[in-house]
């Protein structure tokens, strides 16, 4: 089974080498997508001979991930894993993430902070309230439950790779992607997530609130306009 780890990278000069090194021994291919970083990320990628794709414009996480899925599709990968470049995700969980796809139990596997006791770091209270609200909305719309709606640690099988390569909802916030493919089999497994070690999170409390309002609004827009894309 050909597995590709897609690592979005925006101004991660301090952590990207460590993140890539953490994948050693996992028997997976990887590609770093440099999202028009304004720091020295590109130089770091070149100097360390890291496999990367450079985007000239900053496309945001959606545009980056779609590029990754397009790369996965072009190179005939069976599984594509989204893996943060800031060192928050633990590479030792990659094989657990792939397992349900291997067994054909799921098309999309989400690494969750809120299942089991693997993850000590479960984000701030305000963000958890937001995530729970999204989870509740998702349940109302699809009848299914995803506890960690904002998790960026996900494994997609070939059918999802194909959907995301052509129709990634990059205009929408990331949790919407789960809604987009909610007619497929989605499974959550417990994973360990760490606090970001280097760099600064771009999410301020005010941005978090704005983001939440946005996501909720997008949920309703999708429900009203694209009934084919989810199991209502």
């Amino acid at each position: 089974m050909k597995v590709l780890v897609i690592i979005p990278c925006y101004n991660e000069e301090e952590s990207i080498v460590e993140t890539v090194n953490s994948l050693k021994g996992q028997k997976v291919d990887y590609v770093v997508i440099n999202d028009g970083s304004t720091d020295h990320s590109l130089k770091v990628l070149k100097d360390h001979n890291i496999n990367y794709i450079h985007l000239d414009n900053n496309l945001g996480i959606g545009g980056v991930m779609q590029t990754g899925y397009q790369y996965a599709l072009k190179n005939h990968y069976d599984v594509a894993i989204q893996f943060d470049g800031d060192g928050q995700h633990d590479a030792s969980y990659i094989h657990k993430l792939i397992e349900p796809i291997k067994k054909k139990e799921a098309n999309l596997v989400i690494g969750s902070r809120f299942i089991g006791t693997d993850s000590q770091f479960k984000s701030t209270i305000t963000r958890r309230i937001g995530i729970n609200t999204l989870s509740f909305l998702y349940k109302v719309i699809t009848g299914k439950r995803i506890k960690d709606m904002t998790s960026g640690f996900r494994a997609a099988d070939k059918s999802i790779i194909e959907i995301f390569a052509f129709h990634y909802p990059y205009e929408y916030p990331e949790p919407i992607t789960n809604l987009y493919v909610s007619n497929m089999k989605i499974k959550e497994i417990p994973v360990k997530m760490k606090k970001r070690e280097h760099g600064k999170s771009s999410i301020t409390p005010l941005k978090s609130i704005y983001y939440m309002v946005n996501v909720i609004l997008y949920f309703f827009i999708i429900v009203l306009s694209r009934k084919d894309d989810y199991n209502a």
Partner: protein
Amino acid sequence: MPNSLKIFLIISILIFIIHVIQNVKTNHLSVRNCIIWLIMSLAIIISVFQIDTLAKIADFLGIKTVANLFFFLGFIFLIFVSFDVLRTQSLQNKKIIKLTQELALLRKEIENDKKHQ
């Protein structure tokens, strides 16, 4: 409307029209996008000579003065224009994303081919 104001409006509009055409000539504005501004300019010039008609329209809409009608119509016009600009910008944004992705993937493919040669 006093004649001095009429003359001022007409001169302003004529300068604006010349400015629009100049922008089209230097390729800073597309013909498609200039048309709406030329139509608007023409509408203002005609309105200057048709104050009575405008007064009737204002009266019909319950607007007390012609000046207020001007502001009202200008406001509606600007809303339409900004919506159109936003729509165009959204479409262009999608195209830029697609182009950026294709360029990046092609560059990667060329790099890989060079490595394998």
